């Protein structure tokens, strides 16, 4: 097994009196899809937010490319090459898809205009159209506000954004939740392509068939800590679910 690209060791996090994470471990390697599964309240989204820089952990360590790091802000995560598709999508509804894709990373015009902050909207739109074509997203009106798109289209925009910018690790929190059959298929193809290009993909999903189909490895979180890790090829859905709900004794399977 190669070195983990991104690893969390013993992360703890509490919100008031609620202990969301009690020493959570997690690891993902380059060129693999690692699924992070767990029942509601297991702490998956919290762990994702910590590893993507949105939340600060109370305790524990984060290791990236063999060094210990801190990820205090989303920008810090981005600079490490980590991108995230959040469960709430984190899109600006009144902006169009191109604006959302380039949010915080806007392209500016060359020269003096650029230094004054003038946007190169045409270039951003072109790149966005290409990215959408990639994903097979067919938007009739790419100038429309994201708020006027369907739920599935919005999710596609969020996924496309992360896929466009990622260089090392991408977290996908319920990426196909609002998608129809065809578009889910596209997103799954995208996930495989991203994995094949050497990126580490962390998939958080309730959709167990999808997890079994896509994931190379599965790590199970329960009550804020890891209780099992499986190779997808060596396990069954029932076994994973059992680990999630605590029906089975916790066991480490490499």
């Amino acid at each position, binding site marked *: 097994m190669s070195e983990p690209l991104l690893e969390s060791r013993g992360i703890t996090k509490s919100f008031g009196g609620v202990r969301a994470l009690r020493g959570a471990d997690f690891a993902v390697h380059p060129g693999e899809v690692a699924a992070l599964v767990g029942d509601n309240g297991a702490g998956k989204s919290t762990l994702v937010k910590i590893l993507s820089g949105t939340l600060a952990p109370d305790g524990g360590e984060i290791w990236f490319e063999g060094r210990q790091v801190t990820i205090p802000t*989303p920008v810090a995560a981005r600079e490490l090459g980590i991108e995230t598709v959040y469960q709430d999508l*984190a899109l600006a509804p009144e902006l169009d898809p191109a604006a959302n894709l380039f949010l915080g990373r806007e392209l500016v015009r060359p020269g003096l205009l650029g230094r004054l902050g003038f946007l190169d909207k045409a270039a951003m739109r072109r790149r966005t159209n290409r990215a959408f074509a990639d994903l097979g997203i067919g938007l009739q009106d790419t100038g429309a506000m994201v708020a006027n798109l369907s739920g599935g289209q919005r999710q596609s925009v969020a996924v496309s954004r992360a896929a466009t910018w990622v260089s090392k690790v991408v977290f996908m929190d319920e990426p196909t939740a609002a998608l129809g059959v065809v578009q889910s298929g596209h997103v799954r193809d995208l996930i495989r392509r991203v994995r094949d290009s050497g990126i580490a993909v962390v998939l958080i999903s309730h959709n167990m068939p999808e997890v079994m189909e896509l994931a190379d490895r599965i790590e199970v979180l329960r009550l804020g800590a890891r209780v099992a890790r499986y190779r997808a090829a060596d396990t069954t859905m029932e076994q994973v679910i059992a680990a999630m709900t605590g029906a089975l004794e916790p066991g480490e399977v490499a």
Partner: protein
Amino acid sequence: MSETREVPAEAQDEGAEAPARAGLRGALRRRLTETTTWTALILLGIVAGFAALRFQQFATVFNFRNIAADASGLLIIAVGMTFVIITAGIDLSVGSVLVFSGVIAAKVMLAVGGESWGAIGAGLVAGLVAGTAWGVVNGVLITKARVPPLIVTLGTLGMALGSALLITGGIDVRGVPLRLTTTIGIGQLAGVPYVVLIAAVVTAVGAVTLSMTRFGRYTYAIGSNAEAARRAGINVDRHLIKVYGLSGFLAGMAGMVSLARFATTTIGGHSTDNLAAIAAVVLGGTSLFGGIGTVLGTVVGVFIPAVLQNGFVILGVQPFWQQVAVGAVLIVAVYIDQLKRRAQERGERR
């Protein structure tokens, strides 16, 4: 930063073409149905109506020039308010900051003394700094102390006006250099009053900044979804401080314009400037919930009440009807905007 995934060239072009064509059609349709178009039509309707009723009196260069000059101060404030409201915030302190800046400027000019441009310039700088300072106070309290904008700016409304009253003893400061009034206040350049030119420049810079720069994009993004902006790496707090600072700066500039026109600080005349500016911005199609709006719309929104008041006085309508009419137009305009939005949602949802 990584590049987009590599896709065969033909697929790239094909994929990019179809959306681009559809995008142009959609953009045109969008422009036609925007609220600004509707309110601009309302404004044209009102102008046409008054012109039809009293052509020789209403539709003259003289009259339009005066309408523009009288509206210049409000327009300057409203440009700043546009930025603030697009971030889903609000600034109630603008009228008080205007007065305070005028007071500071007048006092500085009197202290320096004389009629020189140096004295006027010193007063101008002092007034703008004073206005910006109040704006930054607003921004800091809103972002760091996490007090809602409505409350913060309500507080600075009182503090700024109260400070102005303290400094002046409640009495307008008079005796501003005469040169300020005769050149900028009532002077013209090629037939256009200087105050109108100032307002026009402010409007143009504001419009370009809002629609074409990163600063404007961040303003829309924060109003649309501040959390998404934060996660995208935008320093939301710093940007908001800049936006409220801008609003204060422009209120200071409006204070200078008022000082130039009236030669006194007109402390009592600006108590409803904040609501007039907010109404103008909303009339122009900006949403109070943030994320949507334009400076051009605000221009239309400023001129609707201005033209209404002017036309009513020309027609000899009782003054109280003017307030009723302006309120009615505001409600009608926002109602039409709601109808249009609902229709758009129904139409574009798939």
